[in-house]
């Protein structure tokens, strides 16, 4: 992709936290309406729709119909929380090829209220058929899958629970500046270590929140972007990588697939690590963020623990990350990838509640499934 051809021109978040009085479809619409207003575009300009959901049948058709759109380009790739970064990669290709002229990416979930309503269980249930018959019978919760990754990392590299906790502490520091973040009270490493163990070695505060909420972004071509009121966030690099579905098939349990998607996205963008001003990395669990830092090459494999220990991921640290408070402290409605993009755009616009002094290049790297899939997006301001 050539530089500065396609940009994110609108962002919107729905109400999030606990939103029992709105349907999941309504939250999609609320986020889309807000993103459209932010872009200053007309609804009829939207001719590309990118959306996926946990369980709804023919999800993207439902969302198109609910929004009253009949888009000529649809994508509903479902790879977990990284789906929205993957959608950016796909939208760039579609927009550059002229298959659509304005792409709406939208997500929403009522994950929290649905548990309270008993529409779903607290741990997403998989039926033990097909590939799942070799793992589901052993009761591996989502958290325990990431805990097994953490356990192996600790065994191989001596990574400690206190080092993982440093990620949660820095993220909470960022959240404390965001009035919309759900958890804003500062915490210490000791608080994380004293929180109850959910699946060894991951404590409660190593794990993301569960909230309701949604988000939307709009991408368009340079020509249209130049005539809009908000400063464009250019997509200058995008790449994805896949690793596995079953936990037993994850070849090296200490290496994120972003060890492939990251270098590819950086190379396409023509940037080096020193050029990156702020990162948004998916943090469903502290270990997920740690593997992402190593995979992207901000530190060497196995050195993530000592790397994060000094709190450098806080907004005023050496490598500001998840400046809205991330999934660990701001919000996490199931598949959070779209919020990484929204916060990265805020940083490039200079509008984050934990704004870094200079934000010219932002990197988003999201993880989907069970350390299964990653997409890395490099964004730049003019």
């Amino acid at each position: 992709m050539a530089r500065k051809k396609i940009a994110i021109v609108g962002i919107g978040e729905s109400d999030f936290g606990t939103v029992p009085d709105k349907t999941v479809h309504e939250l999609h619409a609320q986020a889309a309406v807000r993103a459209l207003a932010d872009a200053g575009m007309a609804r009829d300009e939207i001719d590309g729709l990118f959306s996926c959901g946990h369980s709804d049948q023919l999800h993207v058709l439902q969302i198109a119909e609910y929004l009253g759109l009949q888009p000529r380009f649809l994508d509903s790739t479902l790879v977990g929380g990284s789906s929205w970064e993957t959608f950016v990669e796909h939208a760039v290709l579609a927009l550059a090829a002229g298959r659509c002229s304005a792409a709406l990416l939208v997500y929403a979930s009522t994950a929290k209220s649905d548990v309270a309503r008993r529409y779903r269980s607290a741990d997403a249930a998989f039926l033990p058929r097909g590939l799942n018959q070799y793992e589901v019978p052993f009761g591996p919760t989502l958290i325990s899958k990431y805990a097994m990754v953490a356990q192996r990392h600790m065994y191989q590299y001596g990574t400690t629970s206190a080092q993982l906790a440093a990620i949660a502490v820095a993220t909470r520091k960022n959240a404390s500046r965001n009035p919309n973040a759900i958890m804003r009270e500062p915490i210490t490493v000791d608080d994380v270590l004293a929180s109850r163990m959910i699946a060894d070695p991951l404590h409660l505060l190593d794990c993301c929140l569960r909230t309701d909420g949604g988000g939307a972004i709009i991408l368009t071509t340079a020509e249209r972007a130049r005539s809009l009121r908000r400063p464009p966030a250019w997509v200058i690099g995008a790449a994805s990588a896949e690793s596995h579905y079953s936990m037993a098939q994850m070849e090296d349990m200490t290496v994120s697939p972003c060890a492939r998607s990251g270098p590819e996205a950086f190379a396409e963008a023509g940037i080096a690590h020193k050029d990156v001003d702020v990162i948004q990395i998916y943090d469903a669990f502290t270990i997920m963020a740690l593997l992402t830092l190593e995979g992207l090459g901000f530190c060497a494999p196995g050195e993530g623990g000592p790397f994060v220990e000094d709190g450098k991921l806080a907004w005023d640290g050496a490598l500001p990350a998840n400046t809205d408070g991330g999934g660990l402290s701001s919000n996490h409605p199931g598949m959070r990838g779209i919020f990484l993009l929204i916060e990265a755009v805020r940083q490039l616009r200079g509008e984050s509640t934990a704004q870094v002094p200079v934000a010219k290049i932002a990197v988003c790297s999201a993880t989907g499934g069970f350390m299964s899939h990653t997409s890395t997006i490099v964004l730049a301001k003019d």
Partner: protein
Amino acid sequence: MNDWYLPMIDSESAPFWEAAREGRFLIMHCRACERAYFYPRRYCPRCWSDQTEWREASGRGTVHTYSIVRQNPAPPFDGWCPYAVVLVDLEEGVRVMANWDRSAPLDGLSCGAPVRIVFERITEELSLPRVRPLSTDG
């Protein structure tokens, strides 16, 4: 009913679960690329050859990693907490998931520990693999 979690056996998996009922752990072997793999698939996932066959594994291996689950709202697992999910590297070079045998102490569990697979009879038709320390079973 709390049997929702039991494997839904299909034509590709039937030999594996039938052997499990007899206390044998089957893996697959590709005669084209001479490599073992698990879980069972008709075509070799590395070379797509159909020259694949079942072989019995020794059942011996080492713990690659594990987690002790302390919270799972889904029955019957809610009643098992704390229980351990283990990934075992079998001697034959494949990695498999199973539970730590609930009759073995959890503190015997560590990465790299030598273990063996045993089977727990669940129903008339079905046995599930469990992981035990190698030393206590000889």
